[in-house]
């Protein structure tokens, strides 16, 4: 008993225990020194790799790794009926899957709120920023069009899923090959022959928006953590996502969560996003 009393005055515990008990305080100790637990500076991004054409059963595919986050995107094309509103336009449907495989934070069952919100965010960027001229996907006006199903499967989740998923969708869209179909009296024929330059075509993208996310770590200082991982997402109070195309035009600014941001802060995010998306574009090329 006496030994317990003696040690309790100088009670200490390991860094791992500290991280589990007071995650926010643990991070604050690092952030106050200008570094993050994984060794990055506050403005540092995680190493990012892009692989193209990884799934041969898909018309276009990609695998993107952003640090510990890995996503695979496969685009499948199907002949479908056009919608009533747009008789000469095809459609692209993005869908993000966050299964219990990629992190113990996700449960089996219907798509989680996060998965739905990320799918919707990508859908909006594709539609509102006119990424693909959908008339390219028309086979016969009012009769048949291409429907592209862009499915993103998250294999390993370590934060910042939107940036990774959007990069994967854009990469997969650039390497989509569609067979040239023939339309004859209500019958669409797509040949089963091997793909060649003559019997297939790729999509022309009007622009390729890529996003950059920052987590707001504290208020009112508004310390920003670039490209937050999953542990950082859990302790942060909000986030700012800036989406830019290759001409540095904005395709989206999204700020959510606590802490009111000054225009200067948003401007600095835009500036840093410009540098980051330039780097990402070199991976896409």
């Amino acid at each position: 008993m006496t030994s317990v009393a003696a040690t309790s005055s100088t009670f200490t515990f390991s860094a791992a225990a500290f991280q589990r008990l007071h995650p926010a305080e643990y991070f604050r100790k690092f952030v106050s020194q200008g570094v993050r637990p994984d060794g990055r500076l506050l403005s540092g991004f995680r190493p990012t790799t892009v692989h193209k054409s990884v799934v041969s059963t898909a018309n276009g595919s990609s695998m993107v790794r952003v640090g510990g986050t890995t996503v695979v995107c496969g685009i499948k094309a199907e002949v479908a009926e056009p919608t009533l509103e747009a008789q000469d336009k095809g459609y692209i449907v993005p869908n993000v899957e966050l299964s219990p495989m990629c992190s113990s934070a996700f449960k089996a069952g219907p798509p989680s709120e996060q998965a739905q919100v990320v799918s919707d965010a990508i859908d909006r960027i594709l539609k509102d920023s006119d990424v693909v001229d959908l008339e390219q996907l028309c086979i016969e006006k009012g009769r048949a069009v291409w429907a592209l199903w862009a499915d993103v499967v998250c294999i390993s989740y370590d934060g910042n899923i939107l940036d990774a998923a959007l990069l994967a969708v854009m990469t997969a869209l650039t390497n989509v090959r569609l067979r040239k179909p023939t339309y004859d009296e209500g019958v669409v024929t797509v040949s089963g022959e091997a793909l060649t330059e003559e019997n297939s075509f790729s999509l022309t993208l009007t622009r390729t928006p890529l996003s950059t996310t920052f987590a707001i770590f504290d208020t009112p200082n508004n310390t920003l953590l670039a490209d937050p991982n999953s542990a950082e997402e859990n302790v942060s109070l909000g986030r700012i996502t800036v989406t830019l195309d290759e001409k540095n035009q904005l395709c989206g600014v999204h700020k959510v969560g606590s802490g009111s941001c000054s225009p200067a802060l948003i401007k600095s995010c835009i500036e840093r996003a410009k540098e980051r998306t330039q780097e990402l574009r070199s991976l896409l090329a």
Partner: protein
Amino acid sequence: MARLDKSRTSSHQLRPFFTSQNLLNRADGSAQFDFGGTSVLCSVVGPAEVKIRDEKLDKATLEVLARPLVGVPGVKDKTIEQNIRETLEPLVLSGLHPRTLLQIVVQTMQDDGCVQSTAFNATMLALIDAGVPLNSILGSVTCMIDRKTNQVLLDPTREELAQAKSTHVFVFDNKAPPAQSKGDEDDVVMEDGDRVEGHVLFCESTGVFTEAEYFECYQVCYKGVQTVHGFLRTAVQKKFEKEHQQLQD
């Protein structure tokens, strides 16, 4: 400069507001907010019992449910739910009601553009009506940039939104912006030399736009929100005056 909806004369003019609080008997607080032809009804229940799975030991759990005009809630509504929840979480003094549930239901009644902004304002009034402690009041407006004229239109209708190159939803609170303590933060100055004002709580901009256009929208919306804040204050004041009178009788 005439606008498509004919009732307005200026591009920076808001549609008429309308609000009505305490409409629903069974909810702890409720409010309707209209921007012209757009109407959203919001109800607040809480502090109520929370499911053990969602229980937070040091604060109240916020749950936002968005209901669309027609049909069942879809992916779009999930985005609105998340946006409202994450914006309100820091605003509500949830530490005062730990281990409880605060449920907010947002029902679109009429849609003529700017539903998300209307929903933000309706939620704010419903929270006040329910007597939920808050640290500030937020107000929201939407603006867009016209594809042909490149003009910033405040509070667009559905008809106008069909012509939009980009749309911008902004939320500002009514707190005075923190004093510029750090000298290293440069002000953002627009082309006409004006400094961009206001600290943004929530913003969602989509479409294609330049940085200058973004900050122009920022400025227009910040000015627009001041009117909304004034209106919210009057609405709350009127309601309390009425309640006070009823108590006197």
